[in-house]
Protein backbone atom coordinates (compact mmCIF):
# COMPACT_ATOMS: atom_id res chain seq x y z
CA UNK A 1 0.00 0.00 0.00
CA UNK A 2 1.35 3.35 -0.97
CA UNK A 3 -0.60 6.56 -0.44
CA UNK A 4 2.21 8.87 -1.49
CA UNK A 5 1.65 11.28 -4.36
CA UNK A 6 4.34 11.47 -7.03
CA UNK A 7 6.69 14.42 -7.17
CA UNK A 8 4.86 15.60 -10.29
CA UNK A 9 1.61 15.64 -8.35
CA UNK A 10 3.19 17.74 -5.63
CA UNK A 11 4.62 20.13 -8.18
CA UNK A 12 1.25 20.43 -9.94
CA UNK A 13 -0.35 21.25 -6.60
CA UNK A 14 2.30 23.79 -5.70
CA UNK A 15 2.17 25.46 -9.11
CA UNK A 16 -1.62 25.64 -9.38
CA UNK A 17 -1.88 26.81 -5.77
CA UNK A 18 0.58 29.63 -6.43
CA UNK A 19 -1.17 30.54 -9.65
CA UNK A 20 -4.58 30.55 -7.97
CA UNK A 21 -3.41 32.63 -5.02
CA UNK A 22 -1.39 35.10 -7.06
CA UNK A 23 -3.42 35.43 -10.26
CA UNK A 24 -7.00 34.39 -9.49
CA UNK A 25 -7.60 35.46 -5.88
CA UNK A 26 -7.05 39.19 -6.55
CA UNK A 27 -9.73 39.29 -9.29
CA UNK A 28 -12.21 36.59 -8.21
CA UNK A 29 -14.52 38.88 -6.28
CA UNK A 30 -14.74 41.38 -9.13
CA UNK A 31 -15.30 38.73 -11.81
CA UNK A 32 -18.08 37.26 -9.68
CA UNK A 33 -19.71 40.62 -8.97
CA UNK A 34 -19.64 41.62 -12.63
CA UNK A 35 -20.46 38.08 -13.84
CA UNK A 36 -17.53 38.51 -16.24
CA UNK A 37 -16.01 35.51 -18.00
CA UNK A 38 -12.30 35.15 -17.05
CA UNK A 39 -10.76 35.43 -20.53
CA UNK A 40 -7.33 36.57 -19.31
CA UNK A 41 -7.08 33.75 -16.80
CA UNK A 42 -8.11 31.17 -19.39
CA UNK A 43 -5.32 32.43 -21.63
CA UNK A 44 -2.80 32.12 -18.82
CA UNK A 45 -4.07 28.67 -17.83
CA UNK A 46 -3.77 27.62 -21.45
CA UNK A 47 -0.16 28.81 -21.58
CA UNK A 48 0.59 26.68 -18.52
CA UNK A 49 -0.97 23.66 -20.20
CA UNK A 50 -3.82 23.40 -17.69
CA UNK A 51 -6.77 23.46 -20.09
CA UNK A 52 -6.21 20.03 -21.62
CA UNK A 53 -4.26 18.24 -18.93
CA UNK A 54 -5.03 14.59 -19.59
CA UNK A 55 -5.22 14.77 -23.39
CA UNK A 56 -2.09 13.16 -24.88
CA UNK A 57 0.63 15.49 -26.03
CA UNK A 58 0.31 14.39 -29.66
CA UNK A 59 -3.09 16.14 -29.70
CA UNK A 60 -1.79 19.26 -27.98
CA UNK A 61 -2.65 18.25 -24.43
CA UNK A 62 -0.54 17.79 -21.33
CA UNK A 63 -0.37 14.01 -21.13
CA UNK A 64 -0.92 14.13 -17.37
CA UNK A 65 -2.85 11.59 -15.32
CA UNK A 66 -6.28 12.03 -13.75
CA UNK A 67 -4.80 12.44 -10.27
CA UNK A 68 -2.83 15.50 -11.46
CA UNK A 69 -5.95 16.85 -13.08
CA UNK A 70 -8.02 16.33 -9.91
CA UNK A 71 -5.34 18.11 -7.88
CA UNK A 72 -5.35 21.05 -10.28
CA UNK A 73 -9.14 21.37 -10.22
CA UNK A 74 -9.10 21.10 -6.43
CA UNK A 75 -6.53 23.87 -6.09
CA UNK A 76 -8.38 26.17 -8.49
CA UNK A 77 -11.65 25.65 -6.62
CA UNK A 78 -9.96 26.38 -3.31
CA UNK A 79 -9.70 29.93 -4.59
CA UNK A 80 -12.48 30.27 -7.18
CA UNK A 81 -15.15 27.92 -8.51
CA UNK A 82 -15.99 29.88 -11.64
CA UNK A 83 -12.49 29.48 -13.00
CA UNK A 84 -12.35 25.86 -11.88
CA UNK A 85 -15.60 24.85 -13.60
CA UNK A 86 -14.52 26.65 -16.75
CA UNK A 87 -11.43 24.41 -16.84
CA UNK A 88 -13.25 21.26 -15.70
CA UNK A 89 -16.23 21.56 -18.06
CA UNK A 90 -13.95 22.36 -20.98
CA UNK A 91 -11.67 19.43 -20.24
CA UNK A 92 -13.96 16.68 -19.02
CA UNK A 93 -17.24 17.51 -20.76
CA UNK A 94 -16.22 19.48 -23.84
CA UNK A 95 -12.94 17.96 -24.96
CA UNK A 96 -12.84 14.37 -23.69
CA UNK A 97 -15.82 13.13 -25.76
CA UNK A 98 -13.99 14.11 -28.93
CA UNK A 99 -10.83 12.41 -27.70
CA UNK A 100 -12.66 9.28 -26.55
CA UNK A 101 -15.09 8.77 -29.41
CA UNK A 102 -13.72 10.86 -32.26
CA UNK A 103 -12.17 9.33 -35.36
CA UNK A 104 -8.55 10.17 -36.02
CA UNK A 105 -9.75 12.83 -38.44
CA UNK A 106 -12.10 14.39 -35.87
CA UNK A 107 -9.38 14.34 -33.25
CA UNK A 108 -6.95 16.08 -35.61
CA UNK A 109 -9.58 18.64 -36.52
CA UNK A 110 -10.66 19.63 -33.01
CA UNK A 111 -8.18 18.56 -30.35
CA UNK A 112 -5.13 20.74 -31.07
CA UNK A 113 -7.17 23.92 -30.48
CA UNK A 114 -9.17 22.48 -27.58
CA UNK A 115 -6.48 20.61 -25.68
CA UNK A 116 -4.16 23.62 -25.84
CA UNK A 117 -6.97 25.84 -24.57
CA UNK A 118 -6.87 28.21 -27.54
CA UNK A 119 -10.56 27.40 -28.01
CA UNK A 120 -13.22 26.07 -25.63
CA UNK A 121 -15.77 23.29 -25.98
CA UNK A 122 -19.07 22.49 -24.29
CA UNK A 123 -21.22 19.44 -23.74
CA UNK A 124 -24.98 19.77 -24.17
CA UNK A 125 -26.93 17.01 -22.53
CA UNK A 126 -29.50 18.70 -20.26
CA UNK A 127 -32.77 19.89 -21.79
CA UNK A 128 -35.75 21.70 -20.32
CA UNK A 129 -37.48 18.33 -19.96
CA UNK A 130 -34.41 16.12 -19.53
CA UNK A 131 -32.32 16.77 -16.41
CA UNK A 132 -31.80 13.87 -14.05
CA UNK A 133 -33.65 11.85 -16.65
CA UNK A 134 -30.96 12.74 -19.17
CA UNK A 135 -31.89 9.93 -21.52
CA UNK A 136 -35.20 11.64 -22.19
CA UNK A 137 -33.60 13.76 -24.90
CA UNK A 138 -36.15 15.51 -27.12
CA UNK A 139 -33.70 17.17 -29.45
CA UNK A 140 -33.74 15.37 -32.79
CA UNK A 141 -31.19 15.00 -35.56
CA UNK A 142 -32.34 13.75 -38.90
CA UNK A 143 -29.97 12.65 -41.64
CA UNK A 144 -30.83 14.54 -44.84
CA UNK A 145 -28.60 14.82 -47.94
CA UNK A 146 -25.39 14.11 -46.04
CA UNK A 147 -26.23 16.44 -43.15
CA UNK A 148 -27.64 16.06 -39.67
CA UNK A 149 -30.54 18.47 -39.37
CA UNK A 150 -30.99 19.30 -35.70
CA UNK A 151 -34.10 20.63 -33.94
CA UNK A 152 -34.61 21.16 -30.23
CA UNK A 153 -33.03 22.90 -27.26
CA UNK A 154 -30.49 22.47 -24.46
CA UNK A 155 -30.37 24.16 -21.08
CA UNK A 156 -27.69 25.29 -18.58
CA UNK A 157 -24.78 24.53 -20.91
CA UNK A 158 -21.38 25.58 -19.53
CA UNK A 159 -18.82 27.31 -21.81
CA UNK A 160 -21.20 27.23 -24.80
CA UNK A 161 -21.24 30.94 -25.57
CA UNK A 162 -17.81 32.43 -24.89
CA UNK A 163 -15.81 34.23 -27.59
CA UNK A 164 -13.44 31.27 -27.47
CA UNK A 165 -16.02 28.53 -27.86
CA UNK A 166 -15.43 26.34 -30.89
CA UNK A 167 -18.23 23.81 -30.57
CA UNK A 168 -20.73 21.95 -28.45
CA UNK A 169 -21.22 18.19 -28.45
CA UNK A 170 -24.92 17.47 -28.04
CA UNK A 171 -26.97 14.37 -27.49
CA UNK A 172 -29.78 14.04 -29.98
CA UNK A 173 -32.36 11.48 -30.94
CA UNK A 174 -31.22 10.06 -34.28
CA UNK A 175 -33.99 7.49 -34.54
CA UNK A 176 -36.52 5.56 -32.51
CA UNK A 177 -35.01 4.87 -29.08
CA UNK A 178 -31.65 5.88 -30.52
CA UNK A 179 -29.46 8.63 -29.06
CA UNK A 180 -26.22 9.82 -30.66
CA UNK A 181 -23.62 12.50 -29.98
CA UNK A 182 -23.04 15.14 -32.63
CA UNK A 183 -20.53 17.99 -32.72
CA UNK A 184 -22.08 21.36 -33.58
CA UNK A 185 -19.59 24.14 -34.40
CA UNK A 186 -20.42 27.61 -33.07
CA UNK A 187 -21.64 29.82 -35.87
CA UNK A 188 -23.58 27.07 -37.64
CA UNK A 189 -26.78 28.60 -39.11
CA UNK A 190 -29.82 27.58 -37.05
CA UNK A 191 -27.77 27.19 -33.85
CA UNK A 192 -28.89 29.89 -31.42
CA UNK A 193 -27.18 30.72 -28.13
CA UNK A 194 -28.99 32.72 -25.44
CA UNK A 195 -27.53 35.57 -23.42
CA UNK A 196 -25.54 34.33 -20.37
CA UNK A 197 -27.90 33.06 -17.68
CA UNK A 198 -27.95 34.81 -14.28
CA UNK A 199 -26.96 32.58 -11.41
CA UNK A 200 -26.60 32.31 -7.63
CA UNK A 201 -23.02 31.08 -7.96
CA UNK A 202 -20.42 30.25 -10.62
CA UNK A 203 -21.28 33.74 -11.76
CA UNK A 204 -18.14 34.29 -13.84
CA UNK A 205 -18.62 31.01 -15.68
CA UNK A 206 -20.56 30.91 -18.93
CA UNK A 207 -23.98 29.18 -18.81
CA UNK A 208 -26.33 29.25 -21.80
CA UNK A 209 -29.55 28.02 -23.23
CA UNK A 210 -29.15 26.61 -26.74
CA UNK A 211 -31.69 26.32 -29.52
CA UNK A 212 -31.50 24.42 -32.79
CA UNK A 213 -33.78 25.20 -35.69
CA UNK A 214 -33.11 23.17 -38.81
CA UNK A 215 -29.48 23.44 -37.87
CA UNK A 216 -27.49 21.39 -40.39
CA UNK A 217 -24.02 19.97 -39.69
CA UNK A 218 -22.03 17.52 -41.86
CA UNK A 219 -22.82 13.84 -41.43
CA UNK A 220 -19.18 13.38 -40.42
CA UNK A 221 -19.82 15.32 -37.19
CA UNK A 222 -21.39 12.24 -35.63
CA UNK A 223 -19.21 11.14 -32.70
CA UNK A 224 -18.62 7.40 -32.62
CA UNK A 225 -21.14 4.89 -33.91
CA UNK A 226 -24.73 5.98 -34.36
CA UNK A 227 -26.93 5.05 -31.39
CA UNK A 228 -24.04 4.95 -28.90
CA UNK A 229 -24.89 8.36 -27.45
CA UNK A 230 -26.52 7.10 -24.28
CA UNK A 231 -23.60 4.88 -23.32
CA UNK A 232 -21.14 7.60 -24.25
CA UNK A 233 -22.69 10.32 -22.11
CA UNK A 234 -22.90 7.99 -19.12
CA UNK A 235 -19.15 7.36 -19.46
CA UNK A 236 -18.48 11.07 -19.83
CA UNK A 237 -20.48 11.80 -16.68
CA UNK A 238 -18.62 9.08 -14.74
CA UNK A 239 -15.34 10.88 -15.46
CA UNK A 240 -16.84 14.36 -15.05
CA UNK A 241 -17.88 13.39 -11.53
CA UNK A 242 -14.23 13.10 -10.54
CA UNK A 243 -13.69 16.74 -11.44
CA UNK A 244 -16.82 17.94 -9.66
CA UNK A 245 -15.83 15.84 -6.64
CA UNK A 246 -12.37 17.47 -6.76
CA UNK A 247 -14.18 20.80 -6.75
CA UNK A 248 -16.03 19.71 -3.60
CA UNK A 249 -12.75 18.99 -1.82
CA UNK A 250 -11.21 22.23 -3.06
CA UNK A 251 -14.18 24.32 -2.03
CA UNK A 252 -14.25 22.70 1.41
CA UNK A 253 -10.51 23.28 1.79
CA UNK A 254 -10.91 26.92 0.78
CA UNK A 255 -13.75 27.35 3.27
CA UNK A 256 -11.68 25.68 5.97
CA UNK A 257 -8.59 27.81 5.28
CA UNK A 258 -10.65 31.00 5.48
CA UNK A 259 -12.33 29.90 8.71
CA UNK A 260 -9.03 28.84 10.25
CA UNK A 261 -7.35 32.17 9.55
CA UNK A 262 -10.37 34.15 10.66
CA UNK A 263 -10.84 32.19 13.88
CA UNK A 264 -7.26 32.88 14.94
CA UNK A 265 -7.51 36.56 14.21
CA UNK A 266 -11.04 37.48 15.35
CA UNK A 267 -11.28 38.28 19.04
CA UNK A 268 -14.40 38.20 21.17
CA UNK A 269 -14.70 37.99 24.94
CA UNK A 270 -11.06 39.05 25.07
CA UNK A 271 -9.60 36.16 23.12
CA UNK A 272 -9.39 34.75 19.61
CA UNK A 273 -12.58 32.84 18.82
CA UNK A 274 -10.34 29.89 17.87
CA UNK A 275 -9.90 29.36 21.62
CA UNK A 276 -13.55 28.41 21.98
CA UNK A 277 -14.12 24.71 21.86
CA UNK A 278 -17.21 25.08 19.67
CA UNK A 279 -15.11 26.74 16.98
CA UNK A 280 -12.29 24.23 17.37
CA UNK A 281 -14.68 21.32 16.98
CA UNK A 282 -16.19 22.82 13.83
CA UNK A 283 -12.69 23.14 12.36
CA UNK A 284 -11.72 19.65 13.52
CA UNK A 285 -14.79 18.16 11.83
CA UNK A 286 -14.10 20.06 8.64
CA UNK A 287 -10.46 19.01 8.52
CA UNK A 288 -11.40 15.38 9.11
CA UNK A 289 -14.09 15.27 6.45
CA UNK A 290 -11.86 17.03 3.93
CA UNK A 291 -9.19 14.39 4.47
CA UNK A 292 -11.76 11.63 3.91
CA UNK A 293 -13.24 13.32 0.84
CA UNK A 294 -9.84 13.90 -0.71
CA UNK A 295 -8.92 10.24 -0.26
CA UNK A 296 -12.12 9.22 -2.02
CA UNK A 297 -11.52 11.57 -4.95
CA UNK A 298 -7.90 10.50 -5.41
CA UNK A 299 -8.92 6.88 -5.25
CA UNK A 300 -11.50 7.35 -8.00
CA UNK A 301 -8.92 9.25 -10.08
CA UNK A 302 -6.29 6.60 -9.43
CA UNK A 303 -8.64 3.79 -10.46
CA UNK A 304 -9.33 5.65 -13.70
CA UNK A 305 -5.61 6.05 -14.31
CA UNK A 306 -5.13 2.31 -13.74
CA UNK A 307 -7.75 1.60 -16.37
CA UNK A 308 -9.93 -0.06 -13.75
CA UNK A 309 -13.66 0.47 -13.18
CA UNK A 310 -14.13 3.72 -11.28
CA UNK A 311 -17.79 4.72 -11.79
CA UNK A 312 -18.89 3.60 -8.33
CA UNK A 313 -16.08 5.43 -6.54
CA UNK A 314 -16.58 8.52 -8.72
CA UNK A 315 -20.26 8.68 -7.77
CA UNK A 316 -19.40 8.11 -4.10
CA UNK A 317 -16.75 10.83 -4.23
CA UNK A 318 -19.16 13.25 -5.90
CA UNK A 319 -21.92 12.55 -3.38
CA UNK A 320 -19.64 12.72 -0.37
CA UNK A 321 -17.80 15.88 -1.38
CA UNK A 322 -21.05 17.59 -2.39
CA UNK A 323 -22.36 17.08 1.12
CA UNK A 324 -18.99 17.79 2.68
CA UNK A 325 -18.55 21.08 0.85
CA UNK A 326 -22.05 22.08 1.90
CA UNK A 327 -21.27 21.48 5.56
CA UNK A 328 -17.86 23.13 5.28
CA UNK A 329 -19.13 26.27 3.53
CA UNK A 330 -21.91 26.56 6.08
CA UNK A 331 -19.65 26.03 9.10
CA UNK A 332 -17.03 28.41 7.72
CA UNK A 333 -19.54 31.18 7.17
CA UNK A 334 -20.87 30.60 10.68
CA UNK A 335 -17.36 31.09 12.05
CA UNK A 336 -17.08 34.33 10.06
CA UNK A 337 -20.25 35.70 11.69
CA UNK A 338 -21.75 38.78 10.04
CA UNK A 339 -18.55 39.57 8.16
CA UNK A 340 -18.99 36.34 6.26
CA UNK A 341 -22.35 37.50 4.99
CA UNK A 342 -20.81 40.53 3.27
CA UNK A 343 -20.01 40.44 -0.43
CA UNK A 344 -16.39 41.43 0.11
CA UNK A 345 -15.58 38.38 2.20
CA UNK A 346 -14.52 35.44 0.03
CA UNK A 347 -16.50 32.96 2.11
CA UNK A 348 -19.76 34.51 0.93
CA UNK A 349 -18.75 33.69 -2.66
CA UNK A 350 -17.68 30.18 -1.72
CA UNK A 351 -20.98 29.71 0.08
CA UNK A 352 -22.96 30.68 -3.04
CA UNK A 353 -20.68 28.67 -5.32
CA UNK A 354 -21.13 25.54 -3.25
CA UNK A 355 -24.74 24.57 -3.89
CA UNK A 356 -24.34 23.64 -7.54
CA UNK A 357 -21.83 20.96 -6.55
CA UNK A 358 -24.83 18.98 -5.28
CA UNK A 359 -26.74 19.47 -8.54
CA UNK A 360 -24.48 19.62 -11.62
CA UNK A 361 -23.32 16.42 -13.35
CA UNK A 362 -25.96 14.53 -11.42
CA UNK A 363 -27.75 15.61 -8.24
CA UNK A 364 -27.04 13.99 -4.87
CA UNK A 365 -30.08 11.84 -5.48
CA UNK A 366 -28.81 10.73 -8.86
CA UNK A 367 -25.43 9.80 -7.29
CA UNK A 368 -27.29 7.68 -4.76
CA UNK A 369 -29.19 6.02 -7.60
CA UNK A 370 -25.90 5.25 -9.36
CA UNK A 371 -24.31 3.95 -6.17
CA UNK A 372 -27.37 1.81 -5.37
CA UNK A 373 -27.17 0.31 -8.85
CA UNK A 374 -23.51 -0.58 -8.24
CA UNK A 375 -24.52 -2.15 -4.94
CA UNK A 376 -26.81 -4.43 -6.87
CA UNK A 377 -30.01 -2.88 -5.54
Amino acid sequence: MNLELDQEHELVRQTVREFAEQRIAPVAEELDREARFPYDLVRELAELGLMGMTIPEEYGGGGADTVSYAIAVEELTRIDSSVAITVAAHHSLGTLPIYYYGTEEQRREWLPDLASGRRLAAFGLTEPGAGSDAGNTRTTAELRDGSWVINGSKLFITNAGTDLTACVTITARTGDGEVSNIVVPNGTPGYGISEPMHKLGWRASDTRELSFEDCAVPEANLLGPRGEGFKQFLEILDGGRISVAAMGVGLAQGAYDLAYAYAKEREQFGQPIARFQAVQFALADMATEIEAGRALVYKAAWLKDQGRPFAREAAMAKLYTGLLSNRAANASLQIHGGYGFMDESPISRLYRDQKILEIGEGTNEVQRMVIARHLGL
Partner: protein
Amino acid sequence: MKVAVCVKQVPEGTKRIDPGTKRLDRSGEGALNSFDAHAVEEALRIRDAAGGGEVVLVSMGPAKAADALRKALAMGADRAVLVTDDAAAGADLVGTSRVLAAVLEREAPELVLFGQQAADADGAVLWSAVAERLRRPVISQVAELTVADGTARGKRQTEFGYDVIEAPLPAVVAVSDAINEPRYPSLKGIMGAKSKPQETLVLSDLGVEAGAKTEVLALADPPPRGETRKLEDDGNAAAQIVEFLDERRLL
Protein backbone atom coordinates in the same frame (compact mmCIF):
# COMPACT_ATOMS: atom_id res chain seq x y z
CA MET B 1 25.69 30.64 -23.17
CA LYS B 2 26.25 28.54 -20.10
CA VAL B 3 24.71 30.00 -16.98
CA ALA B 4 24.91 28.49 -13.50
CA VAL B 5 22.36 29.45 -10.86
CA CYS B 6 22.96 28.86 -7.17
CA VAL B 7 19.67 27.99 -5.54
CA LYS B 8 18.75 27.16 -1.99
CA GLN B 9 15.81 25.37 -0.48
CA VAL B 10 14.45 27.32 2.46
CA PRO B 11 11.89 26.28 5.08
CA GLU B 12 8.36 27.31 4.16
CA GLY B 13 6.41 29.63 6.40
CA THR B 14 7.84 31.21 9.51
CA LYS B 15 11.40 30.21 10.26
CA ARG B 16 12.17 28.38 13.46
CA ILE B 17 15.54 27.89 15.06
CA ASP B 18 16.09 24.54 16.73
CA PRO B 19 17.13 25.53 20.29
CA GLY B 20 19.20 22.33 20.63
CA THR B 21 21.44 22.63 17.57
CA LYS B 22 20.95 26.40 17.21
CA ARG B 23 20.41 25.73 13.53
CA LEU B 24 17.44 26.44 11.34
CA ASP B 25 14.77 23.79 11.68
CA ARG B 26 14.63 22.26 8.20
CA SER B 27 12.31 19.41 9.06
CA GLY B 28 9.12 20.95 7.62
CA GLU B 29 8.14 21.68 4.04
CA GLY B 30 10.75 23.42 1.96
CA ALA B 31 10.44 25.79 -0.96
CA LEU B 32 12.72 27.29 -3.58
CA ASN B 33 14.10 30.51 -2.09
CA SER B 34 12.02 33.22 -3.76
CA PHE B 35 15.00 35.38 -4.79
CA ASP B 36 16.47 32.32 -6.45
CA ALA B 37 13.32 31.88 -8.56
CA HIS B 38 14.12 35.33 -9.98
CA ALA B 39 17.69 34.21 -10.66
CA VAL B 40 16.45 31.10 -12.46
CA GLU B 41 14.02 33.16 -14.53
CA GLU B 42 16.80 35.54 -15.52
CA ALA B 43 19.08 32.66 -16.48
CA LEU B 44 16.37 31.13 -18.68
CA ARG B 45 15.85 34.44 -20.45
CA ILE B 46 19.58 34.91 -21.01
CA ARG B 47 19.92 31.38 -22.37
CA ASP B 48 16.94 31.78 -24.66
CA ALA B 49 18.00 35.23 -25.85
CA ALA B 50 21.42 33.81 -26.65
CA GLY B 51 19.66 31.24 -28.80
CA GLY B 52 20.89 28.30 -26.78
CA GLY B 53 23.26 27.10 -24.13
CA GLU B 54 22.57 25.64 -20.76
CA VAL B 55 21.20 26.59 -17.36
CA VAL B 56 22.77 24.51 -14.59
CA LEU B 57 21.41 24.61 -11.05
CA VAL B 58 23.87 24.30 -8.18
CA SER B 59 22.75 23.71 -4.64
CA MET B 60 24.01 22.48 -1.32
CA GLY B 61 21.49 21.15 1.16
CA PRO B 62 19.72 18.12 2.57
CA ALA B 63 18.50 15.43 0.16
CA LYS B 64 15.03 16.89 0.05
CA ALA B 65 16.45 20.10 -1.42
CA ALA B 66 15.98 18.12 -4.63
CA ASP B 67 12.31 19.23 -4.48
CA ALA B 68 13.32 22.87 -4.86
CA LEU B 69 15.63 21.92 -7.70
CA ARG B 70 12.79 20.08 -9.41
CA LYS B 71 10.70 23.22 -9.40
CA ALA B 72 13.52 25.14 -11.06
CA LEU B 73 13.95 22.31 -13.58
CA ALA B 74 10.20 22.47 -14.27
CA MET B 75 10.58 26.20 -14.93
CA GLY B 76 13.05 25.26 -17.66
CA ALA B 77 16.56 24.80 -16.26
CA ASP B 78 18.50 22.05 -18.03
CA ARG B 79 20.14 20.11 -15.23
CA ALA B 80 20.96 20.20 -11.55
CA VAL B 81 23.89 19.45 -9.24
CA LEU B 82 23.08 18.92 -5.57
CA VAL B 83 25.78 18.56 -2.96
CA THR B 84 24.35 16.73 -0.01
CA ASP B 85 26.46 15.37 2.80
CA ASP B 86 25.92 14.98 6.54
CA ALA B 87 29.27 16.64 7.07
CA ALA B 88 27.90 19.79 5.42
CA ALA B 89 24.95 20.21 7.76
CA GLY B 90 25.24 23.47 9.63
CA ALA B 91 27.91 24.78 7.27
CA ASP B 92 28.74 28.44 7.64
CA LEU B 93 29.51 31.07 5.05
CA VAL B 94 33.09 29.98 4.55
CA GLY B 95 32.18 26.31 4.24
CA THR B 96 29.20 26.86 1.94
CA SER B 97 31.13 29.17 -0.34
CA ARG B 98 33.93 26.62 -0.62
CA VAL B 99 31.54 23.92 -1.73
CA LEU B 100 29.65 26.04 -4.24
CA ALA B 101 32.90 27.41 -5.64
CA ALA B 102 34.22 23.88 -6.11
CA VAL B 103 31.17 22.89 -8.14
CA LEU B 104 31.35 26.10 -10.15
CA GLU B 105 35.07 25.55 -10.94
CA ARG B 106 34.12 22.22 -12.39
CA GLU B 107 31.19 23.60 -14.37
CA ALA B 108 33.07 26.68 -15.61
CA PRO B 109 29.99 28.71 -16.64
CA GLU B 110 30.32 32.10 -18.30
CA LEU B 111 27.88 33.59 -15.84
CA VAL B 112 26.92 32.64 -12.29
CA LEU B 113 23.65 33.97 -10.93
CA PHE B 114 22.63 34.15 -7.28
CA GLY B 115 19.55 35.38 -5.52
CA GLN B 116 20.27 38.45 -3.48
CA GLN B 117 19.60 36.65 -0.22
CA ALA B 118 18.22 33.49 1.31
CA ALA B 119 14.88 33.88 3.09
CA ASP B 120 16.00 31.70 5.99
CA ALA B 121 19.45 32.86 7.10
CA ASP B 122 19.23 36.24 5.35
CA GLY B 123 22.96 36.50 4.97
CA ALA B 124 23.04 38.25 1.58
CA VAL B 125 26.75 37.54 1.46
CA LEU B 126 27.32 34.20 -0.16
CA TRP B 127 27.74 35.53 -3.70
CA SER B 128 30.62 37.78 -2.69
CA ALA B 129 32.41 34.93 -0.94
CA VAL B 130 31.96 32.63 -3.93
CA ALA B 131 33.08 35.34 -6.37
CA GLU B 132 36.16 35.88 -4.26
CA ARG B 133 37.02 32.19 -4.36
CA LEU B 134 36.48 32.06 -8.12
CA ARG B 135 38.44 35.32 -8.57
CA ARG B 136 35.63 36.75 -10.62
CA PRO B 137 33.99 40.16 -10.56
CA VAL B 138 30.66 40.40 -8.76
CA ILE B 139 27.68 42.70 -9.24
CA SER B 140 25.02 42.59 -6.52
CA GLN B 141 21.44 43.80 -6.06
CA VAL B 142 20.90 43.78 -9.81
CA ALA B 143 17.44 44.93 -10.95
CA GLU B 144 18.22 44.88 -14.67
CA LEU B 145 20.80 42.74 -16.40
CA THR B 146 22.17 42.84 -19.93
CA VAL B 147 24.64 40.27 -21.12
CA ALA B 148 26.31 41.01 -24.44
CA ASP B 149 29.72 40.98 -26.11
CA GLY B 150 31.46 39.28 -23.25
CA THR B 151 30.24 41.65 -20.57
CA ALA B 152 27.52 41.72 -17.96
CA ARG B 153 25.95 45.08 -17.27
CA GLY B 154 23.86 45.38 -14.15
CA LYS B 155 21.58 48.17 -13.06
CA ARG B 156 21.12 48.47 -9.34
CA GLN B 157 18.56 50.67 -7.67
CA THR B 158 19.92 52.84 -4.88
CA GLU B 159 18.39 55.38 -2.57
CA PHE B 160 19.33 58.16 -4.95
CA GLY B 161 18.82 56.60 -8.37
CA TYR B 162 20.66 53.91 -10.25
CA ASP B 163 24.14 52.48 -10.34
CA VAL B 164 25.10 50.90 -13.63
CA ILE B 165 27.97 48.48 -13.27
CA GLU B 166 29.76 46.55 -15.95
CA ALA B 167 31.97 43.50 -15.57
CA PRO B 168 33.69 41.24 -18.07
CA LEU B 169 32.53 37.62 -18.27
CA PRO B 170 32.94 35.26 -16.59
CA ALA B 171 31.22 37.06 -13.74
CA VAL B 172 29.01 36.57 -10.71
CA VAL B 173 25.71 38.44 -10.41
CA ALA B 174 23.25 38.52 -7.51
CA VAL B 175 19.76 39.57 -8.57
CA SER B 176 17.08 41.47 -6.68
CA ASP B 177 13.41 40.54 -6.85
CA ALA B 178 12.70 43.58 -9.02
CA ILE B 179 14.56 42.05 -11.95
CA ASN B 180 11.69 40.01 -13.40
CA GLU B 181 8.49 38.11 -12.77
CA PRO B 182 9.37 34.41 -12.47
CA ARG B 183 7.26 32.15 -14.69
CA TYR B 184 5.07 29.40 -13.32
CA PRO B 185 6.29 25.97 -14.34
CA SER B 186 4.10 24.72 -17.18
CA LEU B 187 2.51 21.28 -17.02
CA LYS B 188 4.92 20.22 -19.74
CA GLY B 189 7.84 21.48 -17.69
CA ILE B 190 6.59 19.64 -14.62
CA MET B 191 6.19 16.40 -16.52
CA GLY B 192 9.62 16.76 -18.10
CA ALA B 193 11.56 17.70 -14.95
CA LYS B 194 12.05 14.16 -13.73
CA SER B 195 13.93 13.08 -16.82
CA LYS B 196 16.43 15.96 -16.71
CA PRO B 197 19.92 15.12 -15.45
CA GLN B 198 20.19 15.51 -11.68
CA GLU B 199 23.56 14.80 -10.17
CA THR B 200 24.08 14.29 -6.45
CA LEU B 201 27.56 14.79 -5.02
CA VAL B 202 29.16 14.27 -1.64
CA LEU B 203 31.99 16.41 -0.33
CA SER B 204 34.66 13.85 -1.15
CA ASP B 205 33.64 14.02 -4.82
CA LEU B 206 34.71 17.65 -4.73
CA GLY B 207 37.66 17.16 -2.41
CA VAL B 208 36.57 19.96 -0.09
CA GLU B 209 35.44 20.32 3.49
CA ALA B 210 32.38 22.25 4.49
CA GLY B 211 32.32 22.16 8.26
CA ALA B 212 31.65 25.33 10.21
CA LYS B 213 34.52 27.23 11.74
CA THR B 214 32.03 29.49 13.44
CA GLU B 215 29.81 28.40 16.27
CA VAL B 216 26.50 29.92 17.24
CA LEU B 217 26.70 30.26 21.01
CA ALA B 218 23.43 31.92 21.86
CA LEU B 219 20.24 33.09 20.23
CA ALA B 220 17.68 35.42 21.73
CA ASP B 221 14.59 37.28 20.68
CA PRO B 222 15.16 40.94 19.91
CA PRO B 223 14.44 43.17 22.89
CA PRO B 224 10.79 44.23 23.01
CA ARG B 225 10.10 47.42 21.15
CA GLY B 226 9.52 50.33 23.46
CA GLU B 227 6.42 52.42 23.43
CA THR B 228 4.25 51.95 20.33
CA ARG B 229 1.20 53.86 19.31
CA LYS B 230 -1.37 52.79 16.72
CA LEU B 231 -3.04 55.49 14.67
CA GLU B 232 -6.42 55.03 13.03
CA ASP B 233 -6.63 57.25 9.99
CA ASP B 234 -9.50 59.63 10.62
CA GLY B 235 -8.24 62.00 7.96
CA ASN B 236 -5.36 63.59 9.83
CA ALA B 237 -3.10 60.58 10.42
CA ALA B 238 -0.32 62.23 8.44
CA ALA B 239 -0.34 65.23 10.76
CA GLN B 240 -0.31 62.95 13.79
CA ILE B 241 2.69 61.04 12.45
CA VAL B 242 4.57 64.27 11.87
CA GLU B 243 3.71 65.40 15.39
CA PHE B 244 4.85 62.07 16.84
CA LEU B 245 8.18 62.27 15.05
CA ASP B 246 8.61 65.91 15.94
CA GLU B 247 8.01 65.23 19.65
CA ARG B 248 10.95 62.83 19.53
CA ARG B 249 13.05 65.23 17.50
CA LEU B 250 13.31 62.73 14.71
CA LEU B 251 12.58 65.23 11.97
